């Protein structure tokens, strides 16, 4: 005879089983077409570079050593890999700034959309996605068109007499940031919108009834309620921004490498696949640690607010 405890346990077990079944398709696709093949990269990072790309099946820790240390080309002294650290740091900085910029722009935009009447909300949702139905390269080139020396912004500035010669925006860090924020904005807006759309404004009303001002309502009521969306949006912007490739090259002029350019160099012209693999795994570990810390931290504050 089954005790109540057993029944509960069985129910829980069957619930967990059902949950595994439900997540099976997603896990399977990712395993086959994303994560599984990455094991190859892990293995490659411990092999010897082939003469013209690819690898030789010969164990070597050299790639991992050169992620962190560099042997001077000319006097053979070993030192910290300053070039790699500079490039890592540049990418991380850019990703952080991009995330902050898209959040600052995206949060009010999502709020604006979510506070429209129910009928028109879908229209706004489509309005925000339509620019992104043209692909990233085309959009980036369109941004270039606007900020270049002969572009609209400079033409207007000169015509208005604000400046006498065009302001060099293209090929600067500002250009990269503008482009990144532009390209990644929907990744921030959509998740925030999704969690804001069903915001219960009775809670906001209650806030005002308790003499909270607008900022307090925003900070103490709205923000905590839509936090899952903010977290999701930040992750969706931050991680792809770290690996950004096209935008920095097209708008920044390609003089300074980003992480993915460095990795691409190893798989391409540099023909050092093991180093490329080791660098990728290093990036993955950094991102994973940052993500875990972020999610854990965000989760804790949520509990405190709750």
């Amino acid at each position, binding site marked *: 005879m089954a005790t109540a405890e057993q029944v509960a346990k069985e129910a829980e077990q069957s619930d967990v089983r059902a949950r595994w079944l439900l997540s099976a398709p997603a896990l399977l696709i990712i395993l086959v077409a994303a994560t599984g093949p990455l094991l190859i990269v892990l293995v490659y990072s411990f092999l010897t570079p082939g003469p013209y790309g690819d690898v030789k099946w010969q164990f070597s820790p050299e790639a991992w050593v050169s992620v962190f240390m560099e042997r001077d080309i000319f006097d053979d002294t070993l030192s910290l890999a300053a070039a790699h650290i500079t490039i890592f740091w540049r990418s991380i900085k850019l990703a952080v700034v991009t995330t902050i910029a898209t959040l600052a722009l995206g949060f009010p935009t999502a709020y604006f959309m979510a506070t429209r009447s129910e009928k028109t909300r879908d229209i706004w949702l489509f309005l925000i996605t339509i620019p992104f139905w043209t692909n990233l390269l085309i959009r980036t080139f369109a941004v270039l068109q606007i900020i270049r020396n002969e572009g609209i912004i400079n033409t207007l500035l000169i015509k208005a007499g604000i400046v006498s010669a065009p302001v060099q925006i293209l090929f600067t860090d500002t250009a990269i940031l503008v482009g990144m924020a532009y390209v990644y904005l929907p990744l921030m807006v959509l998740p925030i919108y999704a969690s804001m759309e069903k915001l219960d404004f009775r809670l906001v009303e209650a806030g005002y009834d308790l003499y909270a001002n607008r900022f307090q309502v925003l900070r103490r009521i709205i923000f905590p309620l*839509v936090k899952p969306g903010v977290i*999701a949006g930040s992750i969706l912007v931050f991680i792809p921004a770290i690996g950004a490739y096209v935008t920095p090259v097209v708008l920044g002029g390609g003089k300074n490498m980003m992480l993915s350019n460095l990795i691409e160099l190893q798989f391409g012209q540099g023909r050092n696949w093991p180093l490329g693999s080791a660098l990728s795994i290093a990036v993955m570990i950094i991102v994973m640690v940052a993500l875990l810390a972020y999610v854990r931290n965000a989760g804790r504050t949520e509990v405190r607010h709750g």
Partner: protein
Amino acid sequence: MAKFSIKHQPGFTAIATTCFVVLYMPIVVLVVYAFNAATSTSEWGGFSLKWFQSAWQNTQVIDATLLSFQIGSVAAVLATIAATMAALATTRTAPYRGLTFKYAAINQPLMVPEIVTGVALLIFFSRVKIFTGYSGLGYLIAAHTAFCIPFAYLPIRARLENMDLTLERAAADLYATPWQTFRRVTLPLLWPGILAGLMLAFVISLDDVVITEFVKSGGQDTLPTYMLGQIRRGITPEINAISTAFLLLSVAIVTLFFFVSRKQD
């Protein structure tokens, strides 16, 4: 202030308006330059439809655009379905063994620079291609679906986490089967999240260059990989023309269905 609106936040509408204007500015430039008579994309040479004509005759660019949309829609739908199921399985539950694993696994495609996934897939899929002799679109669709899943998953999950459980409990109390509860209660509530996820996935698939470049087989150029090949030797306003055409087409389709669905309501 005449009327106190609880929904008002100072400056938000201004920021949102700016955002929409800025979002559409490059698109306007793109569309305007599609009608440019000059060969260069940087100077204005008068109004002309010649790039539409030349794009229409360029089978390579037409094929690439169609393929982009084809892969994008299939991968986005598949990814959204898988992501919705996964989101249902990983939210609103006490922690169970494997939950963190699932969370990490689903987000994994996000964490690797595209070039790495590209090379890994190149090596892996090449073996499969040689072994099976099949080199069709399946590989691109699988790859796109995989990296679209986290993009679809996160907004859906965010929506689920905010969702009220009481309605579903009420449905269950009224003897609705789990499927009925899902279909009649959960799904409609979840819909904005699913729509956001679907849109994101579609957009992400359309944008992908690097992974596609490594996975594609003969005759499988998408618009981005086609453009990547062009950058070296100069991009013509044909690209503007084709993007404009498809932009108008998608807007037309969306508007049409929007009005049709409104009539039904």
